[in-house]
């Protein structure tokens, strides 16, 4: 009873959100969620590009520390908390899409409720962690747990898609998505478990020097570049009719992702 009332209250309020409400009436909530998924994805690709670019300064730690101090300012700390919203929403909604498309789960309303509830919980937890300033986490243990859970998820998706008919590129997009599902939110959370300290050059270098974490980072980097690149190419393919322009943009996206892949790999090898 309370659950139904709460749902009715939330859905009534959401129906009044400008612009979104027009699309809710004309295309349904899932259309709005699909657009939100896209926009969050684009935002994350942009952020990841800035992130990799900033990390490339690690070769000169003093320069890196000077730049990272800038991100420690209060407005940036707030923005970095806000980043949890697109990250967790895109991850969980991506999980919902994988369940819907690949595992035949049609209980979409319930899955969507979970997406929103867990997203809200994650964002608040993130904020709490930022305020608590905890330093007692073992990075190796943290990544071992996250990577084990996530690799298991990716293996399930691989086994499901392996023999199915269809595009290998699309399957790989889903496989990389399932690999990033926990890894990216975990990465974000880890950074905020030790704000400031964990982002200092010496700490980042020490972390990347660990062979296990180095492989984790490289795995995340390439999964993210493929996943983001495929997503962007897919969006351009939806709206651009000219084959020449479509191929040109696909090549540009591929080259950009390859360049970021090169920067990231070089960094991991050098450190």
């Amino acid at each position, binding site marked *: 009873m309370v659950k139904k009332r709460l749902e009715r209250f939330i859905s009534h309020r959401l129906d009044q959100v400008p612009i979104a409400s027009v699309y809710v009436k004309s295309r*349904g909530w*899932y259309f709005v*969620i699909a657009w939100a998924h896209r926009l969050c994805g684009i935002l994350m690709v942009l952020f990841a590009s800035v992130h990799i670019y900033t990390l490339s300064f690690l070769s000169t730690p003093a320069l890196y520390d000077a730049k990272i101090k800038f991100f420690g300012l209060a407005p940036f700390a707030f923005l970095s908390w806000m980043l949890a919203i697109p990250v967790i929403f895109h991850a969980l909604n991506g999980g919902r899409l994988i369940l819907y*498309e*690949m595992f*035949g789960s049609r209980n979409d309303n319930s899955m969507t409720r979970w997406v929103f509830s867990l997203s809200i919980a994650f964002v608040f937890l993130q904020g709490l962690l930022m305020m608590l300033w905890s330093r007692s986490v073992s990075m190796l243990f943290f990544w071992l747990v996250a990577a084990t859970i996530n690799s298991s998820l990716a293996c399930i998706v691989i086994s499901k898609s392996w023999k199915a*008919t269809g595009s290998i590129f699309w399957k790989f997009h889903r496989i990389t998505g399932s690999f990033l599902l926990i890894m990216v939110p975990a990465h974000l959370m880890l950074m905020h478990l030790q704000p400031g300290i964990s982002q200092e050059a010496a700490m980042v270098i020490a972390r990347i020097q660990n062979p296990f974490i180095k492989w984790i980072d490289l795995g995340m980097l390439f999964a993210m570049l493929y996943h983001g690149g495929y997503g962007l190419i897919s969006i351009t393919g939806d709206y651009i009719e000219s084959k020449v322009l479509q191929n040109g943009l696909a090549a540009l996206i591929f080259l950009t992702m390859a360049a970021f892949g090169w920067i990231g790999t070089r960094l991991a090898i050098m450190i």
Partner: protein
Amino acid sequence: MASHYHITLKIRRYDPENRRSWIQNYHLEAGRILRFVDLFRKINNEQDPTFSWNSSCEHGQCGTCSVKINGKPLLACELLVENAVQYFNTPVFNVEPLEVAPVVRDLVFDLTKAYKRIDQVKPYVISPANPPSDQDEYSISPNEMKQYINATRCINCFCCSSACISSHRNFLGPNAMLASMIRVLDPREKEKAQRLKILYGHRGVYRCHSSRACSFVCPKEIDVAHFVALAKAGRFNDPNNE
């Protein structure tokens, strides 16, 4: 519940001779159970005989009267004034043609061009299997039919295509995908490989992003997204690989 409504239709007009497009307002007194096709006819009879629109059966079976009302693609013959006022919570309606093909005039779009997408998936049995030797005709069992019976209810009104997040530029469209899948699942069809090539081609199911707008707007209440998701999950395996 009002017995009459004062409604305003803001209709997107298009004059092909001068290639001019504009919004024209029509104010109408309408009974609550009038359909939108009735309103269009009322405009023709009482206000403006030049206003063009499309319809044929006018009972939700042919799909020719599809338009966008306040952004929602639907069949004008199925929408009652009373329901529209309640659903959109306004007596003012923006009426536009679907953008799935070039507009011929006002609300009439080029159905021949729209149907070209359906033609691409070959909506017929390409290579029919012979009936069993002891029968004159090929009978499909209820179990086989159950898998795709809902998909066969599609009337190609193009509402799903118009609503789709993937737009209609490079995607053949949810209705074209349904037409393809019906024949993939049809046990009478022997030519599966060619069909799967189109279904999984660059204008096929992978253009779908599961926004489920197709299922939301479908006037025949077909869960289109469910069928497209089945295809993406690889449920229609290539018989050559089996």
